[in-house]
């Protein structure tokens, strides 16, 4: 290993690779330390599929313009204002050029995937998905001469008065070594796979969370930085969670474990009671709130219940629905109280008012006289076989991060910019995305700030 690099990048996802490539292209020597083995490289990027970039006109793969102003409005809405306007507007402006820059790094675009037509105007999809995107970035980085180490866990950072000095690296093959570099880019993601850390905010309930990405997103770099005087940003108690199949593996189930069928039925908890308006809002919001809702239920489990008439209304699922010819039979298979489930469904059916069903708009199919109401898309559940998906909270990412400025330079607790430390990606996403979510925005944050962090770090290393 070189005695000293210009730029050390910790992490191995989209943000890390964009930083490494941009630093290398600016003439710096670059080392990337990815904590995961090669197959699992890239953290959450493995499971992504698109990026949200502003553009003034339709392109080959985007169906229409998405202006900076519209992007900003969307961001303001989903975060409820919990964003740094200056930084966010800057990112949105930079996102325009990313559409081309990322292609120059070998990434290829394609039109929006089947089942995601609503994103066809705003989001650019990676041909072959997130792992294909990563593969392209890694090939480019290697070709440019970036050094990359896998299974490379950083166990300590030496930081003197806001200045990065060295990292202590532990690898299975060569033990512990010290890595020195002129600058640091931290792009090591959030802490969603660190159940112990999640428990600090969620208590024992966190044991029942499923993690949608790899087990390597443990947030250890974030923790070290915050412990060494870097200013934090974002709500530590918040994480982005969706409802995913309870039969999914604990880690890395990815996209295929999600369920988007809530609006077509009802959702009950382990006591066979409904607990929230299943028809509140349209995709993608309806999809994004259910992880949190299920997390608040006893044992963090819930069941989406629907009947055979709606099976083809949503994407095919990895795990087949659990079926019963009667409500009681279904309840028995789900280990719910049959009488309670029958009562819930009977009351729901009786409350459904006539209307014209249309799942693409907020239609007039609703209930009357029950609490909680189902305010749209309410139809009786009466055609056997009756079907159900068990769901649990699937944690996608966390919001806590390091504060940065427009150079992607970390800010210290005293408000001063760090001498030589930069951050990009999920580890600093909270600057822009204080809460909420808009599809593809995590990748925008990663690419935009990764590119800037790499460029600035290279410049910093030369001075």
């Amino acid at each position: 290993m070189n005695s000293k690099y210009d730029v050390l990048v910790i992490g191995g996802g989209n943000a890390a690779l964009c930083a490494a490539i941009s630093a290398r292209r600016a003439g710096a020597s670059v080392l990337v330390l990815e904590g995961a083995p090669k197959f699992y490289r890239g953290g959450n990027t493995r499971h992504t599929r698109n990026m949200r970039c502003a553009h003034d006109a339709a392109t080959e793969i985007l169906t229409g313009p998405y202006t900076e102003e519209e992007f900003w409005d969307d961001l303001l809405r989903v975060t409820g204002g919990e964003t740094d306007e200056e930084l966010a507007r800057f990112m949105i402006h930079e996102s325009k050029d990313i559409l081309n820059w990322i292609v120059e790094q070998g990434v290829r675009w394609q039109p929006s995937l089947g089942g995601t037509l609503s994103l066809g105007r705003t989001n650019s999809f990676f041909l072959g998905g997130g792992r294909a995107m990563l593969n392209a970035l890694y090939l480019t980085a290697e070709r440019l001469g970036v050094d990359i180490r896998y299974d490379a866990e950083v166990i300590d950072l030496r930081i003197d008065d806001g200045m990065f000095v060295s990292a202590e690296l532990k690898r299975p093959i060569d033990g512990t070594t010290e890595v020195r570099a002129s600058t640091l880019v931290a792009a090591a993601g959030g802490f969603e796979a660190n159940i112990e850390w999640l428990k600090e905010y969620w208590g024992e309930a966190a044991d029942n969370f499923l993690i949608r990405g790899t087990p390597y997103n443990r947030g250890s770099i974030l923790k070290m930085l915050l412990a060494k005087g870097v200013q934090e940003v974002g709500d530590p108690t918040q994480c982005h969670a969706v409802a995913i199949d309870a039969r999914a593996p604990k880690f890395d189930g990815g996209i295929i474990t999600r369920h988007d069928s809530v609006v077509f039925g009802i959702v009950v908890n382990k006591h066979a009671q409904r607990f929230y308006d299943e028809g509140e809002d349209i995709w993608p919001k309806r999809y994004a709130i259910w992880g949190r809702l299920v997390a608040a239920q006893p044992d963090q489990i819930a069941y989406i219940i629907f009947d055979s008439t709606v099976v083809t209304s949503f994407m095919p699922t990895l795990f087949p629905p659990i079926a019963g010819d009667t409500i009681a039979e279904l309840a028995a298979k789900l280990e719910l109280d049959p009488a309670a489930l029958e009562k819930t469904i009977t009351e729901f059916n009786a409350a459904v008012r006539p209307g014209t069903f249309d799942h693409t708009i907020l239609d007039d199919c609703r209930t009357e006289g029950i609490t909680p109401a189902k305010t749209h898309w309410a139809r009786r559940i009466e055609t056997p076989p009756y079907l159900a998906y068990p769901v649990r909270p699937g944690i996608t990412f966390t919001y806590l991060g390091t504060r940065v400025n427009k150079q992607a330079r970390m800010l210290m607790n005293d408000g001063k910019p760090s001498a030589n430390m930069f951050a990009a990606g999920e580890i600093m996403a909270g600057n822009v995305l204080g809460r909420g979510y808009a599809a593809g925005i995590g990748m925008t944050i990663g690419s935009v700030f990764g590119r800037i962090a790499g460029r600035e770090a290279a410049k910093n290393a030369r001075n």
Partner: protein
Amino acid sequence: MQEADRLMTVCNSCRYCEGLCAVFPAMEMRRSFSDGDLNYLANLCHACGACYVDCQFSPPHEFNVNVPKTLAVARAESYAAYVWPRALSSMFERNGLVISLVAAFSMAAFILGFAAFNDPKLLFGVHTGPGAFYRLMPHNAMVALFGAAFLYAILALVMSVRAFWRDIGEPIGARADGGSIFQAIRDAGELRYLHGGGVGCYNEDDRPTDRRKLYHHLTFYGFLLCFAATSVATLYHYLLGREAPYAWWDLPVVLGSLGGIGLIVGPVGLLVAKARRDPALLDEGRYGMDVGFIAMLFLTGITGMALLLLRATPAMGPLLALHLGAVFALFITMPYGKFVHGIYRFAALVRYAQERRHGPNG
């Protein structure tokens, strides 16, 4: 088949690979998969390997998604399932051995036949000028033997692909329209889907190249050129009364020489690529079938070129026997070896072009 069915469920709930090739869009038109559907998808797959390298769930992930390998197995099984006559489906078991035995017997038979029917002086003599070949084997005998072998191969292939077409096409026996056939000819002719979604196909590692496509083009177009050479020569013989062998500048020789070079370089390249390829992508149990067919093409090419180069020497007689033996073996094994991959894949491409135009039931 069960594994293929499981994978299609995984893939259908993900769809990230949709833009890579024809398999995934075809899959998305379905929610459940009959054996015919799976055989259709298996033959639509060109084994470029991109979906394996791009998949976040490929091994060692516990979902163990390996589409190229699973479809390669299903594809090989489909060859045996649709073969005509059905009794010969066992030809696809240990296919490499079967092909080499047929080739060896065929070449030996021609050598022995030449020796039995010809005086040794004639067999090892130097023959030049029009009709030189036919002094060793009369033209009519050649036409009768090879015509019969060729017609049989055509019949068996037509019957096999008919069974395939019926099984994959709903409703039964749907006819193809001209536009779809034209689209399929273009897709097959340029190997549109052997490209990893644009970057090339995956071989020994995660660096895509277009080498396999290049070697396949050399092989396929080499084969077509050789076929064209034989067809032109037949026309010369019957229409113009000009008998082989022809001068080096004459059309049959030019076509045959170019084709022969393709049939030597292409198969060698394909064999090397196959040997180097990541075994995770391959149906290793069918190695013999692939190698057998490639070797047959190579043998045809190399004996043909040797015959051309040495036709004015005493080696001409034995080389002619070897070449005819190789070509004969190639013809009669066509319906019972890897050759069928092109026919089934073409039918699958026609079906896909139809689906794109009219939907899966049109």
